[in-house]
């Protein structure tokens, strides 16, 4: 259905049919070009201006970026992001993989367990945050429960602790996402050819070797997808922090997403806020672009 024919020898119907798809696709294309790529360009531009409460068009070069990296809170946010992303991705992957492998052992009640592992994904982070905030609150949550049970010395106050609060967020985030990773791995496991496993068993592979040498290597695409999805979720994380700690105590749990919001909209430092958004976009692009490029090219052939 390509169009390398001169239009003169095509009848009207054919010509119209050739143009119709493009015409119908155009609004979506226009929306995306304007609202996504146009906006990215605009924010990029703002990041080089001295915009404060309102956008200004005075060019200041790299100044916002220089200042951004001198701000202590940004430093904390980046540090937190690294800690959060590493723990979130690795713990979710490990739990997801364990659950998937376990569920794949012809478990009775799989139909009940699977939705239980997965339902947190249907919840808003604000809801999750509400539950966990209270759960982790030493005055009424887990700590208090253990005290009431008579274990007076038990202490679990991460959420109030500047150094530990980010780990509390990791717990809630893992709770929400690990079931999803499980589903991805389970689909991968179910997709593996039975005959391959039979062959490996005939070759005398132990269960451990079967998984290590035959099964896990075949889950490579699932690992990659999980990494990409979790990675971009980590960088975008905003709701959970707001609901759980609001970025506190102090700014101990700030992440780039919360930093950007507070600098752009509450502290009236739009230029710096834009610069931080650009850094976020670049980080996500570093993960997504190669992945999407590979996927698109693979689909072509």
């Amino acid at each position, binding site marked *: 259905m390509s169009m390398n024919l001169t239009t003169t020898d095509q*009848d009207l119907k054919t010509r119209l049919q050739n143009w119709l798809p493009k015409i119908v696709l155009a609004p979506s294309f226009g929306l995306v070009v304007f609202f996504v790529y146009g906006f990215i360009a605009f924010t990029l531009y703002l990041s080089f201006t001295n915009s404060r409460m309102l956008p200004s068009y005075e060019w200041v070069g790299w100044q916002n970026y220089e200042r951004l990296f001198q701000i202590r809170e940004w430093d904390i946010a980046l540090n937190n992001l690294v800690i959060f992303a590493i723990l979130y991705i690795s713990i979710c992957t490990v739990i997801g993989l364990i659950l998937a492998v376990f569920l794949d052992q012809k478990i009775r009640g799989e139909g009940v367990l699977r939705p239980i592992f997965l339902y947190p994904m249907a919840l808003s982070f604000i809801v999750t945050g509400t539950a966990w905030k209270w759960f982790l609150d030493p005055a009424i949550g887990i700590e208090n429960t253990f005290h009431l049970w008579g274990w007076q010395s038990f202490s679990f106050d991460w959420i109030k602790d500047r150094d530990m609060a980010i780990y509390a967020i990791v717990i809630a985030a893992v709770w929400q996402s690990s079931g999803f990773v499980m589903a991805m791995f389970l689909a991968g496991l179910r997709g593996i050819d039975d005959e391959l496993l039979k062959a490996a068993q005939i070759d005398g592979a132990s269960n451990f070797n079967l998984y290590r040498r035959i099964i896990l290597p075949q889950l490579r695409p699932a690992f990659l997808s999980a990494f990409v999805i979790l990675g971009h979720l980590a960088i975008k994380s905003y709701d959970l922090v707001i609901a759980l700690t609001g970025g506190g105590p102090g700014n101990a749990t700030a992440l780039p997403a919360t930093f950007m919001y507070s600098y752009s909209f509450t502290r009236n430092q739009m230029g710096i806020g834009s610069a931080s958004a650009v850094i976020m976009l670049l980080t996500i692009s570093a993960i997504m672009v190669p992945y999407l490029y590979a996927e698109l090219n693979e689909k072509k052939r």
Partner: protein
Amino acid sequence: MGFLNINGVSKSYGSLKVLHGIDIEVEEGEFLVLVGPSGCGKSTLLNLIAGLEDITDGEILIRDRVINGVHPSERNIAMVFQSYALYPNMTVGQNITFGLEMHGVSKKERKIALDEVAKLLRIENLLHRKPKQLSGGQRQRVAMGRALVRNPDVFLFDEPLSNLDAKLRVDMRTEIKKLHQNLGTTIVYVTHDQIEAMTLSSRIAVMNDGYVQQLGTPKEIYDNPQNIFVATFMGSPAMNLIPAIVRALDDGTVAEISLYDGSLEHLPFGRADMNSWDGREILLGLRPEMITDEESADRKSQNIARIKNRIEVTEPAGSDTFISMQAGGKSIVARMKSDIDVKPDQVFPFAINMDKAVIFDPVEGIRIQANISS
């Protein structure tokens, strides 16, 4: 001027040229089969005729009307696809009449046309089923019904039987042949299957790499392939191509070939005039059935050559037994009666029908001397 004319048609996808100046003329009521290896451009050519792809160069005419750029639905063609392409959400009846509906045919007339086609194909009791609830053979019939109901000028078939099992394929082949004989429509039919090609067609176009290698009746294609490609592609087992050297001797020109023990044997060309090739290498093309035992040799042949050669392998195949042996430094195949009593390693006398030999230039790959008996 034929009924369907394909004049110098080329097709490129970007820089990839998949059809090169195809010229084919199809008469009204003719059954043209396109064969060729996978990827040679058969489906592409069919799609060009259907108007599903745009022609890069050249033109296609039906009833002397140029149809380049005409919408597929306005070409008065019908197509049967390899996967049948039945609309999964519609019943059999709706599938068959969808095209009529799109052309604004009234409901009453659609019903009449549907009943007629359903009767012809014996699918009256399936009309309310969904494609999912049909067997492969039934789907095939419905796909044909969808094509038939439009009463088109030209039928296009793209490997319509290749998804059926062997038995059903033979049955459907017969049905298609009957339909063609009864309705007398013009058909262009793509297949991989040589037997389909030989039995159904009034003419065959053998394609390779986007070129038509040979266009002719099944007999012409089989007996007189124009080049090495056609010779080896059509026929199973393939035509033997035995390296030989032409020797012009006093008592006639012969092909000199080496046998299992390295000894040289002379096969006379008889009436074929090969004098000008004296001393040069050729490929001697012989169908397996041209190499046989004395008893089965063609009585009408005026030129039987006799050689003794060692049998390497025997392969009984039901009605025939195939025997392989060394000749011209290659393994070649002979076709014998099934009850022949031979064993491997036995040295056996063969009779070769040189009247039917086709001779090729080993360098150019083209035929230099046709089968003189045809």
